[in-house]
């Protein structure tokens, strides 16, 4: 993922190699002889078995369940076609979850990357003691979700938390971070960003440090300010990494569960009831496996669409 631009620029003759290997492939062809087929199955067998048991079967089972109603003990009983999907997509409750998830995911992605970029930009400078800052900035990478949640629960605590103490000291009105529907989302976003930041920072820093210094030197001789260099050299140069990080953060955002469960449980009043948390609650609280299956598939489609959009939109800017 952290290919240096040097390797990018030195891959000009690749096309001919590709053409060649394609030709070879078509020569040996799809029609393998019996012995080759036998070997092919032997080699593919283990991975097909593992994929089948752990990926394909659950996936088709989910699809199957989503087309039924499930009874008290989770068994599919009545075939209802797509009505689980239709009910969900017309339910104000589900749509609000969808909206909440979008806000959360986009906010987390944008803020994480913006902050990561700023921190990495500072940390990539050759300054005395910069190592300490690099370590500090990346420190949250080793923090587990539960530790992060507990840490921030302490900070957000309305009576003894750090934020309460500060607002008390400044005579500001107290904010019920986790119990006020308006603020809970922000609290969860802050915590997620804090948790993601270490990884994002480190990856972006790595990418920045692989940008050849002569690019900056040339630019500074030509009269580009540091700010201009950030936007016109650094960001375009690390765009493949930015792309990677943004997809990872986005998908991780959609999948956020532990933090929600530990901090808000989807509340207050569903203000942080993300799609994944909803699936969990529908399946493992209410035992409504059919609906949870339908929700899972909708979420899968949403993530796929987002990833696709990112690929389509960003690959133009990324690929150089």
């Amino acid at each position, binding site marked *: 993922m952290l290919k240096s631009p040097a390797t990018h620029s030195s891959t000009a003759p690749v096309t001919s190699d590709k053409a060649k290997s394609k030709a070879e492939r078509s020569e040996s062809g799809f029609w393998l002889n019996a012995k080759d087929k036998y070997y092919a199955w032997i080699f593919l067998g283990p991975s097909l078995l593992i994929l089948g048991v752990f990926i394909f079967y659950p996936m088709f089972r989910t699809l199957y369940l989503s087309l039924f*109603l*499930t*009874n*008290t*003990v*989770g*068994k599919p*009983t*009545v075939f209802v076609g797509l009505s689980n999907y239709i009910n969900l997509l017309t339910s104000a*409750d589900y749509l609000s979850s969808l909206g909440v998830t979008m806000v959360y995911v986009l906010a987390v992605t944008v803020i994480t990357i913006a902050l990561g970029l700023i921190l990495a930009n500072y940390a990539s400078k050759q300054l005395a003691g910069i190592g300490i800052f690099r370590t500090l900035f990346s420190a949250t990478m080793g923090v587990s979700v539960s530790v992060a949640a507990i840490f921030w629960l302490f900070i957000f605590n*309305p*009576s003894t938390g750090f934020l309460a103490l500060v607002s008390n000291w400044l005579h500001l009105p107290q904010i*019920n971070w*986790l*119990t*006020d529907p308006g603020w809970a989302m922000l609290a969860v976003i802050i915590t997620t960003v804090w948790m993601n930041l270490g990884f994002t920072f480190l990856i972006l820093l790595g990418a920045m440090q692989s940008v050849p210094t002569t690019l900056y030197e040339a630019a500074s001789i030509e009269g580009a300010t540091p700010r201009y260099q950030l936007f016109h050299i650094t960001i375009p140069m690390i765009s493949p990494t930015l792309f990677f990080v943004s997809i990872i953060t986005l998908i991780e955002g959609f999948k956020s569960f532990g933090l929600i469960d530990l901090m808000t*449980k989807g*509340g*207050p*009043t*569903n203000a942080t009831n993300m799609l994944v948390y909803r699936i969990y609650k529908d*399946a*493992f*609280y*209410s*035992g*409504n496996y*059919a609906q949870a299956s339908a929700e899972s598939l909708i979420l899968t489609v949403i993530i796929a669409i987002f990833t696709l959009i990112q690929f389509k939109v960003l690959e133009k800017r990324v690929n150089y």
Partner: protein
Amino acid sequence: MKKVMAFLKAHLLPVIAIVVVVIGAVVYTSAHKQTSAKAGRTPIVFWHEMGGPAEVALDQMVDKFNKSQSKYEVIPQYQGAYDEAVQKIIQSHGSNASPALFQSFDISTAQMMHSKYTTPVQKFIDEDNYNVSDISPVARSFYSNKGKQLAMPFNTSQPVLYYNASLLKKYHITPPAKSPSYSDVTRVAEQLYKRSHHKVKGMTMEIYGWLMEEALANAKTSLVNHGDGHVGNPTKINLNNPTTVNYLKWIRTNIKSGDFVNYGSGASAETNEIAAFLAGKLGIFVQSSAYIGQLTTDNPNKLGISYFPHPDGQKANGVGIGGAALWISNDKPTKVQKGAFEFIKYAERPDSQANWQKATGYLALNSKSQSQPALKSLYAKQPEARVPGEQLAAAKPNDTNSGILMEGMQLTREMEETAMETVYDGGSIPKALSNASQGMNTNLKTTNRANNDYQ
């Protein structure tokens, strides 16, 4: 990091071997520990959801039971939260990982009944001629259907009204009656708010479906048809009824006069209202009797307790219970099921229940527990701790105060709470209630449809 990687590379196989052996050993010993029973004893695996001090008390109860006889060995296993445990119990049924005896919470009763995965304890009550008359009738009726006992109530609580007696005395306010009416509570709340010059809020009612259901129970109104599910499987829900409207109007009256404070919903709401109450900034709140321990130990003020309030001009019907019951799985041999029932009987004994109330705040279900030394010493120290037990004993069970025997109660409560929230925020009461009713009915129809060809 590099060094670690290099080490791993060089010693990959031995490292893997060691890890496998260690994991294997851990799994083996823990599995061994979980399923072992002393020679000659029948193991009874018992799944429960009691954490913290309640788990300690439960373990002690189990230990005493195991020592009291030599035929069975009850093995308690903590399974996390109520909601998740229900799914674990259902999904593990029929496998050798399933429990013989399990604890499942109040609103899962209909689900457990419909699953047909349990042996109704009535069978063992009849076989043993076990006398259940000492056990709280309201609690028993919660877990029974058509006169048949499905499970035995275990940890049980009821909502009660807590008030700050010291503050009331300070501002010369007559405390609420032992079984107060809505207007009586309003009077106290308003007086407290005014006479403290708005320094003390009068009251709160948490946005919690359970409390609203209890308000219906206390007014002898059913939420769902077929006698709240006790006569037959429910087919219709009516939240938009005069009783609910009356309850919400009472809350709105207090919101309007400014004495009411809204702490929202969920565990944090409870934490915050208790914190405010203990700090003398809140006069009245209604909450589970299980909080009594916390409210007496850390409270600088004198605690007052009344029954759950009832509508004006109407006698209190009594409220239903909350908590959980003990169920016996039907996928285990009769010998094991009998052993499970032996433990249930032990758990319901007067001394067991008295110790249980003292240790946990859950109410003793056996009427003979009241004369046990454990409770006598508790009441000597905290006379007000009697009140919840008295409320429990006073209720005569009928269909409306025996819980709602309907599947999908988790979702129903969520919708109730959304409606309450809307009203607390100033929205129209009938509209909020009819919206909720509509959602609940859709849900109920789907559930019934899904269960139809199974039942």
